[in-house]
């Protein structure tokens, strides 16, 4: 689980927050509602999650319920892989 969170943090920092310190992107930092991820960025992140973790994300699963924080995405990935 912690591994997933670190991988997600690193990916989000590289792709969408270049130059940001890892400590500023917390597990519970809102990603969608804060404007860090816009709709296109979210699609890209969903594709990354699908490819990296070998899971399929249905369109209705890609909303703020699962994709608004590193915590949320990590739990979602874990439940999908379980």
């Amino acid at each position, binding site marked *: 689980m912690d591994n997933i969170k670190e991988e997600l943090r690193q990916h989000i920092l590289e792709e969408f927050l270049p130059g940001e310190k890892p400590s500023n992107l917390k597990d519970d930092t809102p990603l969608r509602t804060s404007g*860090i991820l816009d709709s296109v960025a979210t699609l890209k992140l969903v594709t990354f999650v699908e490819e990296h973790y070998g899971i399929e994300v249905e369109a209705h699963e890609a909303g703020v319920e699962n994709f608004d924080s590193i915590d949320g995405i990590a739990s979602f990935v874990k439940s999908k892989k379980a």
Partner: protein
Amino acid sequence: MSVSHLAGYLEASASRFPDRLAVADPDGTVLTYREIDERASRIAGFLADRGVRRGDRIGLALPKTTAALTAVFGVLKAGAAYVPVDWTGPAARIGTIFADCQVRAVFADCRRAELAAGAGTAILLGADVSSGTDAFPWETVLEHAPLEQPAPDRHPDDLAYILYTSGSTGVPKGVTLTHRNAISFVDWCSSAFTPSEHDRFSSHAPFHFDLSILDIYLPLKHGGALYLIPEELGKKPRDLAHFIAGHRLTVWYSTPAILGLLGEFGDLDRFDYSSLRTVLFAGEVFPVKQLRRVVKHWPHPDYFNLYGPTETNVCTFARIPTPIPEDRSEPYPIGWPCSHCAALVLDGDQAVEAGSEGLLYISGPSVFSGYWGRPEESAAAFMDRDGARWYNTGDVVKQSGCDGFLYVGRRDRMIKRRGYRIELGEIESCLYKHAAITGAAVIALPHPEAGMRVVAYLAGPEDSRPSIVELKVFCNQNLPAYMNPDVFVFLDALPRTSTNKVNYQELTRKFAAGATP
């Protein structure tokens, strides 16, 4: 059939095709031509009762639903002009817009009721509001008696709508369009795309975006069906792919950005798109690689590249021959002027020869009359020549052989991103509002996938610099999402030229040299 007022399109179709489907929501709400026309007349009656008169402006801060479309026609029937805004956008920016054009009434979603607070009359959708002195629930408005006949005087030069675009000084500016402007464009669309009552159109663009003019008025003029795509669905390529196939849409119109996402993320092969006959795109350059991907999935429709700023709506167009050759990488031209427009390419005062670059000027009945309340900027946008009034698009084009004009770029600081116009100066003005920022310079660089990448260079005291996460959030609260920069970089000081202006060239070089993330 010829009408001189946009409401006339709906009224004529309501008498020709009263029981045909006019508009549908994804949630299943549908309205026939008779129903939407009757409801719009009731809204117009309500507005007239509230003192709304010909030429008044009415704000629309609504999600894209059949109700919002009905409100558009209610406003037009009342002789007023609608001012659509992104109902999810920053309240301060929307407040500035509504104050700028002094709206008499605002239709707002109840979740953003505060957006209607300053107007004399607020109509709230989706709420259990009880009628107050100035606030009315949508249902009450629909129960009002229809506008008395004969309707108020109508003139083709009446204002129909104001579309606000990014302003370089940080304040959005309102492009004012008349019925004549819109109708000359819609009538051209009729001749170019030959729609009929059997067509089923997409409506992907939000109403505050000028692509919506074709979406709304072309189907309703011809008695076709309009399938509204609200913001949330519009951003989900897989659901959108299902939507297009499921409703057997025949005409699609959007920015290249969303078509590109459909091609990349839509899993288009899952469905049958044999009904789709025409694909239109406009708003920015379509990267050929992405266009090729779409054409491979949808080989049979006719593809058209439409070009035109909000001030003129579409003024040049090109049919794209398919299939797209594998070895082609240069973007397609924007083509030749539409039949209702004339074009001129000038370098200074001189018309340029084929093959040379120049600024594109447009004249014709679709060209706007001016920016709301900005006489100087309006005057500066036009040039008189050969007895005609020409709008300077600010776009640099090149005439390329028999293909028409090729888009080259801009000489100012306006960019296009996902089809939206952005004045980089508006982003800078926003960043300057942050207490810890003493310098802000924003540049944009072409990016093979993202189209344009927006980079904000900032200066400010080292001990109080906000984090990038904080900057993202700050911009999100003050700017539309499409203006939020991709990259933020703090410098000790912004580079300056010898005349002490921000040295944007130096910043562009800095970024290209990879000195920054």
